[in-house]
């Protein structure tokens, strides 16, 4: 059996693998950007998690004390 007889099947299989893996990587990266953007947008509007807010309050207090 020669490689040239079935080269189309081999190329199609590798193309499918590249496509599926490419879509997976793109999905993960785009989703990460979207979530980061949404979080940044909420924080810009002053909506933060309590733990994050407490941390930033502490930082401000420390800065005041140092000043």
């Amino acid at each position: 059996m020669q490689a040239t007889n079935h080269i189309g099947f081999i190329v199609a299989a590798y193309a499918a693998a590249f496509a599926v893996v490419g879509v997976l990587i793109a999905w993960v990266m785009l989703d990460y950007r979207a979530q980061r953007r949404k979080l940044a947008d909420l924080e810009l509007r002053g909506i933060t998690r309590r733990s994050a807010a407490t941390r930033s309050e502490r930082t401000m207090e420390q800065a005041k004390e140092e000043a």
Partner: protein
Amino acid sequence: MALADFANPSRFLTFANRAIPWLGGVTLIAFAFGLNQAMVAPDDYQQGATVKIMFLHVPSAWLGMLGWGVMTIAALGTLVWRHPLADVAAKAAAPIGAAFTLLCLVTGSLWGRPEWGTYWVWDARLTSELVLFLLYLGVIALWRTVEDPSRAARAAAILTLVGAIDLPIIKFSVDWWNTLHQGTSVFRLGGSTIYPTILIPLFVMAVAFTLLFVTLHVAAMRNEILRRRVRTLRLMQASAAS
């Protein structure tokens, strides 16, 4: 830092941010080496060059099953131990496992046509693999249907545990039934039936695919934690407004 410390989502995010670039780099190197090995591997004496499809098909099949295995352990974590990251891990693994199962089915069809003369037969191995893909779609649909993540997690965990029955069926289908799909040839009593010049590239590609799975899974878990933070903040915003 103990493994249990990663149960804290914030600590997991710190870990993920540090680990993902390294994991991505190692995965890239593993694929460069694996693809090179796959291309220079000799043709099979019976199958010819179509044996090169095996370097994609077999790791995809393993990872499709590994994905459901990860989800099964996570399902136990959700239902039994109520681990804070268990349902995050399960939800993140589902689309990745589904993609690898789909890749297994597609590459299997493209390998089957020149070897068997057909793209598809309803034999036990192929059908049980298709069932796994449909189970993945079911779990993904369930996650998207139920809005509350904790309720969705419990429902998805039950479906995952029930679906885990398919894993031994896939594995032993070629032993239990007379199938067109070949029998076990890699991990079997008495050693592998594959010659080392083909077996070694197969293992290298399997390692590369597994590293890809781990990288994508950690990244998808990070996304899911961030998505839940966005949801919590929006709920806080809504309750403050009302």
